[in-house]
């Protein structure tokens, strides 16, 4: 039984959370004891617009299986407009990743406010579930034909 447990796929998931809404939402999920799998590791950024596509690809390059970006709801950005830019950038980037054949579910953007601890936890549970169903990230890790 313990062997089977060890075999269970534990994905590596990087979550970029904006300091003002989503990181606070994650804190609220924590103080409300709303659990989600330990596979998720959060990186604090000032705003979702700080997330460079380079970071996302770097994570995949280094073996991440999923990357999620959380920011304030549109209209509620602490810096007024940051999440709008993030939204366009990520929309285009995700569309391109889909275009090159990377599974759609590996990347996600979710708007989580400081008051939405429940949503944060639910989102992370859902995302981990999705990544587990997709399995290990092989497509982004290695593109070149081997031989």
């Amino acid at each position, binding site marked *: 039984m313990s062997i089977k447990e060890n075999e269970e796929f534990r994905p590596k998931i990087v979550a970029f959370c904006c300091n003002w809404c989503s990181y606070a939402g994650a804190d609220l999920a924590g103080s409300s004891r709303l659990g989600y799998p330990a596979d998720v590791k959060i990186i604090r950024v000032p705003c979702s617009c700080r997330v460079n596509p*380079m970071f996302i*690809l*770097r994570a995949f*390059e280094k073996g991440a299986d999923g990357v999620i970006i959380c920011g304030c709801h549109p209209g509620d950005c602490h810096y007024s*407009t940051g999440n709008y830019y993030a*939204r366009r950038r990520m929309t285009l980037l995700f*569309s*391109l990743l889909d275009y090159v054949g990377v*599974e759609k579910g590996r990347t996600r953007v979710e708007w989580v406010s400081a008051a939405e601890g429940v949503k944060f936890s639910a989102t992370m549970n859902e995302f981990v579930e999705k990544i587990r169903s997709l399995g290990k990230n092989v497509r982004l890790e290695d593109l*070149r034909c081997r031989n």
Partner: protein
Amino acid sequence: MQELISRIKALLADKTVDRVLGWKAGDMPYNPEPAYFETEEDLKDFVYDGFCGANLSKYMIEASKLEGKTLVCLKPCDTYSFNQLIKEHRVDREKAYIIGVGCKGKLDIDKIKAQGIKGIKSISGAEIDGAADTLKIDTMYGEKTCSYADAMLERCHVCKGKEHMIYDEIIGESKDTADGNRFDEVAKIEAMSPEEKFAFFQKELSKCIRCNACRNVCPACSCRKCVFDSNKFDSAQKANVVSFEEKMFHIIRAFHVAGRCTDCGECSRVCPQGIPLHLFNRKFIKDINAFYGDYQAGADVDAKAPLTNFTFDDIEPGERG
């Protein structure tokens, strides 16, 4: 071409311009290359024909730093790139004297060779003054012919139009060459299953040798120092540790020029491995048009670029496409 050369001579002579940026004949009949001409004497090598595909606008970044004006020959599609460079303050309009040269479609020697035409000695029918209907090719194995359209670069079949976006004067006639839909190729890939898409790009990108030709020729890729050459992201170019890096390079490169790429097609033209790199840029262009409304980089210097713009109701990432 004679009209063009004599006009250039006149402008050099009356000191309107100090130098000329054009194309010089190469060692083969089909490989002219970009060159500066400073004297009438230099101009004997000047050439402008169907093989002059190179986009000269990027050279104007350096030319803008030189004393005096530079005359630059820009094809219709090159003028979009020039405009985009103006928008980004990379070239100085005052330092440029733009002759908008006519275009009847640019030729791809590989397409001619692919038809089994080898041992090429000379080619006629590629002259800019010609009808651009048929190419007569004198080879070591006798004379061969080839339809002009069949020898054209992919980008000319989906030409944005033969109107110059910016110029001081226009010399020479153009001929409409568009006979395809710009986004057909992209749509074809979009319709593939994820596995097929992956296989397609894996096959293409595996050919990449990281020679940086695409980057060097791209008028949008004009950073003083590329992120892949600097230590800003710990991403300095080096021996590939993992093969992921090609993909990273091409995706990031496409992302960096998204909303700025005019779709001039130079990246694909110069790739020694024949990777259809324009398919990345065109995907972004297609998405931008679909998500945020039609946008052509370089058409309007004052328009807000799609990635520096937003609306409250923009679609959400992952929603479409």
